[in-house]
């Protein structure tokens, strides 16, 4: 369960304080898929960053599975992310100095999981890259990199997966593969999925769509006709 209560974010710019997210409250129940949409600069990524504890809100409270995260220190937050949150980024953000296989190992190593090798191999297989494990990110295509990123996001079996424009940098066909994987994460594995996306096809898969504009929630609607995969 993700709970946001009156969460806002104001930054100071050259021209004075600028509110990039006005006070916002909503809840995302466990296992739900939510798409956050809106034009550029509407505050989507800010909202996602706040949920992940990557940024601190100017006001309000954020609770993940009952834990208030706005009062936690940097290192405590890092540990919480390691345990509870899997991340998928638009620009993949794999560690360039590590192979695909090692990239998947890292979150488990950080969390201190004993003998994570088997799980890393299984995850690599589940994204269809069993034979590419020893390749470095620069040797993989964009779609392959994003699949490695999804496998990495699932490494510690987190209850929540956050994805920031996961198909934004991919062509339609590769984007489709990624979409399939994310849907599987949500529907088969029962993980909570929060997506920031412009992609109508991707948004159509969500249980709920939250539309932002100028830092305010302008629409929340349940997706009755949730697309089948």
């Amino acid at each position, binding site marked *: 369960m993700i709970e946001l209560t009156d969460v806002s974010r104001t930054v100071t710019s050259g021209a004075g304080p600028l509110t990039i997210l006005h006070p916002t409250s909503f809840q995302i129940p466990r296992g739900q898929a939510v798409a956050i949409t809106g034009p550029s600069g509407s505050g989507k990524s*800010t909202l996602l960053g706040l949920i992940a504890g*990557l940024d601190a809100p100017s006001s309000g409270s954020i609770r993940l599975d009952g834990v208030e995260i706005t009062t936690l220190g940097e290192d405590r937050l*890092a540990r*919480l992310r*390691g345990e509870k949150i899997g991340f998928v980024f638009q620009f993949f953000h794999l560690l360039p100095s590590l192979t695909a296989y090692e990239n998947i190992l890292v979150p488990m190593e*950080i969390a201190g999981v004993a003998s994570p090798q088997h799980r890393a191999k299984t995850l690599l297989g589940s994204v269809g890259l069993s034979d590419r494990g020893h390749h470095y990110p620069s040797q993989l295509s964009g779609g392959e990199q994003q699949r490695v990123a999804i496998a990495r996001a699932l490494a510690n079996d987190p209850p929540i997966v956050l994805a920031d424009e996961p198909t934004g940098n991919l062509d339609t066909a590769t984007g489709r593969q990624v979409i399939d994987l994310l849907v599987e994460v949500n529907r088969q594995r029962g993980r909570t999925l929060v997506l920031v996306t412009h992609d109508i096809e991707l948004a159509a898969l969500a249980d709920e769509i939250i539309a932002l504009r100028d830092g305010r929630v302008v629409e929340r609607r349940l997706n009755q006709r949730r697309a089948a995969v």
Partner: protein
Amino acid sequence: MGFVLRMAWRETRATWARLLFFFVCVAIGVAAIVVLRSVVQNVRATLTREARSLVGADLVVQSNRPWTADTRSRLESVLAAFRVLGRTELVETQTMAATLPGQGTGKVRLVELRGVAPGFPFYGSIELQGGQPYSHDLVARHGALVPAEFLAELGLQAGDELRLAGQSFTIRGVVVKDRVQRGGGTIAFGPRIYIDLVDLRATSLLGFGSRAAHQVLLRVDERDLDALTGQLRRSFERDVVTVRSWRTLEDRLGRNLTIAENYLSLVGFAIVVLGGIGVWSVTRVVVQQKIRSVAVLKCLGASSRQVLGTYLTQVTGLSAAGSALGVAIAALAVAAIPASLLEPLGIKSASITVSAALQGVVVGLLVSVLFALVPLLEVRRIKPILLLRADTRFTARRRDWQSWLAGGAIGVLLAAVAIWQAGSLLAGVFVSVGFAVIAGVLALASRLLVRATAPLARSSKFAVRHAIVSLGRPGNQTRVILMAVGLGCFFILAVRALQANLLEEFDAQLGGRSPDLILIDVQPDQVDGVRAVVAPRATEPPRFLPLMRARIVAVSGRRTRLENAEAVRAHGRLTREYGLTYRDGLQDNERILSGQFWSGPAAGEPARGEPQAEVSIVEEVQRDAQIDLGDLIRFDIGGQLLEARVTSVRKIAWDDAQNGGFYFVLRPGAATERVPHTFVGFVETGGNPAVRGALLRDLVTAYPNVSSIDVSAILDSIRHVVDNVTLGITIVGAVTLLGGMLILVGAVAMTKFQRLYEAAIYRTLGASTRLVATMVAVEYGMLGLLAGVLGAAGALGLSWALARWLFEIDWRPAPGLLSAGVVVTAITVAIVGLISSADVLIRKPLGTLRSE
């Protein structure tokens, strides 16, 4: 921990090519330290040996009067508190040596007689003809050791008898080379003859009023040396007793050795700092490139400590490996030093010493980790939120108190390393403060540069315009290059400037103006005649100096009143015998502090009731004996009394004692003509023994009473040591220059990674290779020029401060060196910038853009 180690290994595996330079920097720094330290240790051993042989012992206590029961007991009581490893005595005096009637040439010769006890000599060697080893048995029971030239002069040979002070001695050996207490401040007044101290005491030579130096030679533990020296000096403060150790050699030679040692240690540290700058530059670039990775790790749950731990482990591992490579390079380099270079240093072969290797590794690790820590700490402040932004460049915010604290701690630690390496608090502080000041100035200068060159951004030339714009761009390399090159330039130039100063100093001390032949006992009426004999063969006109020996028997002044000789003795400060001279001008090393120095000799006899002469005193006399202008001093000169009024006080630059240093100088006139005195002649023969021999023959024929002292041997021995030191300094200077240049080239080359992207974009937008190259050259050239100017200014200041306060030598600016440094820096930086960007200029831009 497992994660940290694994990540450190993976990071190293992937970025080894870029980290190679880090590795090389550490290796060069450590190699330089180990080479320098090893050479310094080898040279220092030689220099210590030289210094010890000059003093003849670890410590010498010398009195110009026979030891009394009181002085003896005070000496014993001080020595009782220390562990004395060896002890012997000698007495040195002058006498006439003669052949037995009917033997040899029948000549009589003034000789320096040295009575020695068993145990002599502790240091230095006496080489005898035929390889015969020196032992006390050779002199015991009326034996004598004499120099070869003396034998020839008197027409004697080994085994013959010799008369000294009315007693006869058997010549048991011929001294070929005497390297004990030679040139250590005392001038030998003739050939030196060794006899047994027991026999010398049995002669009449050491009776009341005789001139003899009574020495106690001591061998003590090196750790006790300074304490013992100090205590003995305090104990004999009021006596005519001098205490000198090889370490506190107070003559110019000793000072030169100390200066050289300090200098060498300092240079060793400077080169490590250069390596540190290289390390800093690489780490900074690596951290910049790792920002996204760090953010990802933090996003995946890694704590700041884990991330910092990863990179710190990597840096430490690389430093350790680099240090090991450095030691290996040093071992090869030292082994490769040709024997011809080592020969003059007094060593057959050099090898790295264990202590030098250890020290190199420790300093290498410490400095590289400390320098790397500065940019590495930035890792803590990287926020994972930047992954959600398109631009993942890390923009530095204001430093928090932790980074200031860390910066301060690193600074203090570096200063501590500097102090350790320089072996002196003062030197370490100078270097650290100099470093801090120049770093601050460079940071400020980089801002000013951006502002000052801003108008050029309106230039009609595209390349200039964009080069200037990129100087002021946020996150550019302006600051890095200015810091790295500026500091590097500062260190290299300071070392070179100091080297030039030191060498000039040594040269000035031993300049061509050294007479190699000293003539003594020239009577006043013989001066013109001797000059006429000598002048044709001398390379410079000979100089003659009137000399009289005097004691002060009364002082009548405002602060000091001493009625008679007893009062003078009781006063204690003026008891010794002084050498006096008269002349009507100042020497080069003198200046007047108060009063007025006379011009020309005094005319006629003084009025009744007026003192007979005028005297000029040195400031030390004014200060210690409290004698002022207008006071009267009565001298006893060879039994005749002479009263003189103090009319001026002089300051003598004792460093430049070449020009002599007289405590009392009289105004020439009728009174000075009357008192008994002789002249000392200084002759330069250009170091040619044949010329010297011919000159001496002529002189002996015309003026048999005039004695000559050949000081070329003393000069040679001093020159020998100074040459070693000079060579050492030159080698060190070359090592610094080479190592420093290499490191700086690398530091500049590292900044290319930041330029890759811009260059690719310019090329995409249609800029020709030539245009991009011009931009790069202008930008780097500009940076090099400014860094060079700032470094040179800093070097000027540092070399001045070090020369003035630490080495206490005259400082001369080195304008040629400094301006050459600036030009070379600017050109080098421009060329290195261009070459290192070569692949950027040649490569297709798409590859670069894609990998960004």
